[in-house]
Structures are given as structure tokens and as C-alpha cells.
């Protein structure tokens, strides 16, 4: 991905604070079309708050967020809805509606926004479930009957329901075993290539960063201290980055590094 690509999300001067506790201050970040951007930072550094600010779940206290060319800070509800159809968000534990089956969960946005024949809606939803690698039997199950990894995949299927341009993932590999986490990374890489997605990934998982991210943004001390290719970021002089990328876990992740994502032909 070259830096010449179109900017799909532009965050400028973002400030978020809960009472006297400042989470973000003067935070700038760009996301380019077609890239996988990994956002990393210590616990409580405000990764998830950044994600929630971008998708509109939290109003920022100051600053500007331009989402697909539109300033979202003073948006009318109709405009916001139009934007909301163009991205998908996968929550940490799927956030599936517990009273609906997986298939019905994926159908919710389709039924809400489009007038389509029932069998087609059903088929599209089922395809999304299969695309995320869930077995066919999972479609008729309720979220409570699925394992954590399967719930995440089901959450991903719902996020993909409207064929979004941008996919937000909140800690997609947390709580998964190493095999499951690697498989999920691979799934994201495959889907990103096939569906031409831009992926905004909030993670703790260094393996994910090395395996699938085109660029890495590090949040520390209330703002983005570095946002670049991982080889460049790991050389940064910021103390948190040094600690993070030179610890034993980072070395393991580096040596395990294999390009999971085949480049697009």
C-alpha cells in the first residue's frame, strides 16, 4: 500500500476525556483505502475509545473526524445512517443479539435497509456466515450455544452483511487460543483481499500486527506516536514502543512472521 492511496478516515486534533482523565489529546491519524491498519497501545491507552469515536458511538470532546470524505462531527442523523451502511464493526465478543439465531443476526441489517425477496436475504446471510468460515450448522444456533471463537466469526459475518468498504475490528483475536487466533488472522487477510476491504484493527496481539497489518499506529501518551510500516515503527525511540517491540513476545512474533496474506494478483 502506498501512501498515495485515498484517505478514507482522517482524524485531526481529536480530544477525548472522561472527567479529568484525558484519554486522547491532539490525536491525528489517517487510514488509507485498501490497507490493514493495526492500532496498538497499552491497556487503557484509548484504542477502543478511538474506535468508538470514529464510528460515532462516542462524541469527541474536540477535534474533527472525516469519514469517507464527510466530516462526522456535526452530522445529521440521515447522513450518519448513510455512512453507517458503509462500514462494518465487529465487537470484541461479537455483540450478537442473543434472542436471534446467527442467521437472523446477519439478516438484521439486510432486512432493515433493503427490500429483497426472503430467499435471497437468507442466501446472502448464509453466504456471509460461510465466508467467515463457520460451519453450516452454526447458522441456526443461538449465540449462547457457540464458543468464543465462533461468536467472533458470527459477529464478523454480521459486520460484513452489507458488504462494507471499511471493517472495524475490536480485538479480534483476544480470548482465542493461538491456533484460533492465527486462523482468524488468516481469515481477515483472505476477506480483505477478496472483498477489497479497508481494515481498522484494534489489537493487543503482536502476532496479528506482524501477520496481517500493512501499517501500525501506536497510541501512547494520549496521541499517536508512530504510524507506519511495522519495520519502521519498531525502530522508533518512544519508550513504550521500545518496551513493546523489544520484549520477548515481540521477538517471538518477529521470528514467526510469515506473510499470511497473498498479495492481490
Amino acid at each position: 500500500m502506498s501512501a498515495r492511496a485515498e484517505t478514507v478516515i482522517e482524524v485531526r486534533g481529536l480530544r477525548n476525556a472522561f472527567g479529568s482523565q484525558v484519554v486522547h489529546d491532539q490525536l491525528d491519524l489517517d487510514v488509507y483505502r485498501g490497507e490493514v491498519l493495526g492500532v496498538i497501545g497499552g491497556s487503557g491507552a484509548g484504542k477502543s475509545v478511538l474506535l468508538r469515536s470514529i464510528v460515532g458511538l462516542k462524541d469527541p470532546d474536540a477535534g474533527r473526524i472525516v469519514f469517507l470524505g464527510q466530516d462526522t462531527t456535526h452530522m445529521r442523523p440521515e447522513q450518519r445512517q448513510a455512512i453507517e451502511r458503509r462500514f462494518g464493526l465487529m465487537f470484541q465478543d461479537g455483540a450478537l443479539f442473543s434472542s436471534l439465531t446467527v442467521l437472523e443476526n446477519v439478516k438484521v441489517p439486510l432486512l432493515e435497509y433493503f427490500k429483497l425477496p426472503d430467499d435471497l436475504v437468507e442466501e446472502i446471510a448464509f453466504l456471509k456466515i460461510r465466508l467467515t468460515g463457520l460451519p453450516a450448522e452454526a447458522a441456526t444456533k443461538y449465540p449462547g450455544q457457540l464458543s468464543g471463537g465462533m461468536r467472533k466469526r458470527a459477529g464478523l459475518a454480521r459486520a460484513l452483511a452489507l458488504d462494507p468498504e471499511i471493517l472495524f475490528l475490536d480485538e479480534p483475536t483476544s480470548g482465542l487460543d493461538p491456533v484460533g487466533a492465527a486462523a482468524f488472522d488468516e481469515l481477515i487477510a483472505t476477506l480483505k483481499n477478496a472483498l477489497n476491504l479497508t481494515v481498522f484493527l484494534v489489537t493487543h496481539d503482536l502476532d496479528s500486527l506482524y501477520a496481517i497489518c500493512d501499517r501500525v499506529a501506536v497510541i501512547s501518551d494520549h496521541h499517536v506516536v508512530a504510524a507506519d510500516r511495522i519495520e519502521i515503527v519498531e525502530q522508533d525511540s518512544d519508550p513504550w514502543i521500545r518496551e513493546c517491540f523489544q520484549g520477548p513476545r515481540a521477538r517471538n512474533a518477529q521470528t514467526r512472521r510469515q506473510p499470511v496474506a497473498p498479495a492481490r494478483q
Partner: protein
Amino acid sequence: MAEAAFIDASSDADGSLLRVGGAWTLANAAALDAAVGRIRPEPQRPVRNVEAGAITALDTTGALLLIRALRADCKTLEQHTINGLNAADEALLRLVASRLDAPKPKAERHPSFRRMLERVGAAVSSIWLQTRELLGFVGLMLATLVQVLARRKKLRVTATVFHMEQTGLDAVPIVALLSFLVGAVVAFLGATVLRDFGASIFTVELVSYSFLREFGVLLTAILLAGRSGSAFTAQIGSMKSREELDAIQTLGLDAVELLVIPRLLALLVMLPVLTFIAMVAGIVGGGIVGSMALDITPGMFIARLHEMTEMRHFWVGMVKAPVFAFLIAAVGCLEGFKVEGSAESVGRHTTAAVVQSIFLVIVFDAMFAMFFMKLHV
């Protein structure tokens, strides 16, 4: 994405040729679905070639519809030649095709009569199971209580006092206010009926009998079932769902001793106290209505109360209070222990605790009424 999409079927030498173009996306799905339905391929003349150079956009829905157009049974792409599709879109098409292999599972449907029978059976057996569980839990509570009283287990004084404050002291305003209002209403009701007989003075007996024997304790018990029974379930239930109960067990502690006995003791002490407050508040409510609307002065009211109302009515009401307290604590704590996993389960069991404890309180109250009637007290 307002751009239209099209599909044309025409025949050529070696089978039919399909010409597709435009934006094959979710936004156009309804129109495309109809178009694909019109040209649905016949089994004996399958589509061989697809001319897709005019496609401007393709998403998974478009890919799904395109595959539908190629083969009615949505299987492999191998027998088809697709021309003009760019590499990315072709990769998408192949990915979608590879994931359409599994048949969609059908949700099981039973005939409605069988379902009804099933539900009736499940309901009956759950009543039996719940009764058994409740009886078992009551036994466990009593056994632990005896051990605590015999000093074989520790009495958690701090926790008990804390729960006395929460379930007792904090409930005083609401219990007093509610009883006061109900007392006033009962007095009004009695006055309207009794005045016609020139017997409005009997309003005093109406209010005092009903509050001492029934309303004082019943109102308090129902309020505490809603206020404290549900709180017990929610507290213990959320501990259960966060595995705190398992932690208690692995630390060698006894969850019943630690969580249930303090709550039980708190209710056993506080429900009678609140009942007393409710009785007083109800009679005061009746007295105020009497003095304002019925020309029964407070002095007359008290004199009449003193003269006509025997002490046994007070004890009839009071003796029920510890029983109701025990029921509310048992149901509330047991439902908390029955919570599993999710937050949804906490909510479901909290509702169940309130419904069950109010039900049991009223059933027991009716049994007490029959019992006292036979005893002529």
C-alpha cells in the same frame, strides 16, 4: 452505486452465452434477482460462456447472484468460461463459489399440537424440580443456620448488619408511606359503606384489624420481595456469573455461610420491624382520614382502638413476618445460585425470584388465615 446492472442471455454455437455488466452490488440486488430469475438456465442447456467485461463493481451479493445465473444449483464454476472479469473480482467469485457448497440447515419444526404437549410437560416437570430444589435449599439453609447458632460456623456480623441496613433501614420510608396510603384508602372505603348503616365508628376496627392481621405484614413482605429478594438474586447471580462463587469454594469457604446466612438473618430481624412500622403507619393513615372526613377525632380513634382491638390481632400479624422473611430470603438466594453465565440469565432469575416469592408469600398468608380461623384467633 446507483448505476444499473444488466444481464442478457443469448445462444451461440456451443451453448448459451451470458452477457453481464454494470454494478453487481447489494444496492441493485432486488433488480438483479428478478432478472436472474427470468433467465434461469435450463438443465439441458447450461450456460457455458460469460462475457463479464462490462461489470463495473462486484460484491459478494453480486457474486452470489451471478453464480445463481450460471447454475440453478449454485455449485462449482469449473464448467464455465468467464471472460473479461478483472483478477480481483474473479478471486471474489471463486471464493464465494467455494463457500456455497454446504447445504443450508433447515430449522426443525414440530407440529403445533406436539409442541403444546411438550411445553405443558416441561412446565409441569419444572414445577416439580423447582419445588424440590427449593425444599433442598431450605434444608441447607436451616442446617447451616443451626451450625452458625451452635458456633460450629462463623456468624458474619459485618455482612449481617450491612444487609440489615440495606433491606431494613433503607426500606423504612417506602414501607411507611405505602402503608399510610393504603390505610387511608381502607378507611375511606369503610366509611363509604359503614356510613349508610350509621356505623362509621367501626372504621376504626376495620383499619386496625386489617392492618394488624393482614395488610401490615403482607404489604411489607411484598415490598421486600420486590426490593430485597430481587437484590439478593442479582447480587449472588452476578457473583456466580463472574465465577466469584467458584472462587469462594476454592478458597475453602462456604457460600451459604458467607452469603446466605447474613441475608437471611437480616431479613428475619428486619421484616418484623418493618411490619410493625407498616402497622403503625397504616393505622395512622386510617386515623387521619377518620378525623378529617368522618368526624372521628384522634382521641376517639385511640380510645376505640384501645377498647375494641385485642392484642392477639397484633400477634397474628407479627407471627407471619419471620415466615415470610424466610421465604423471601430462600427464594432470592436460591435463584441467585441458579444463574448461569450470561447477564441475560441474571435478569431472568431476578424476575423469577420476585414472582415466586410474592406467590409464595400470598399462598402462605392464605394458609395462615385458614389456620387461625380454625383456631378461632
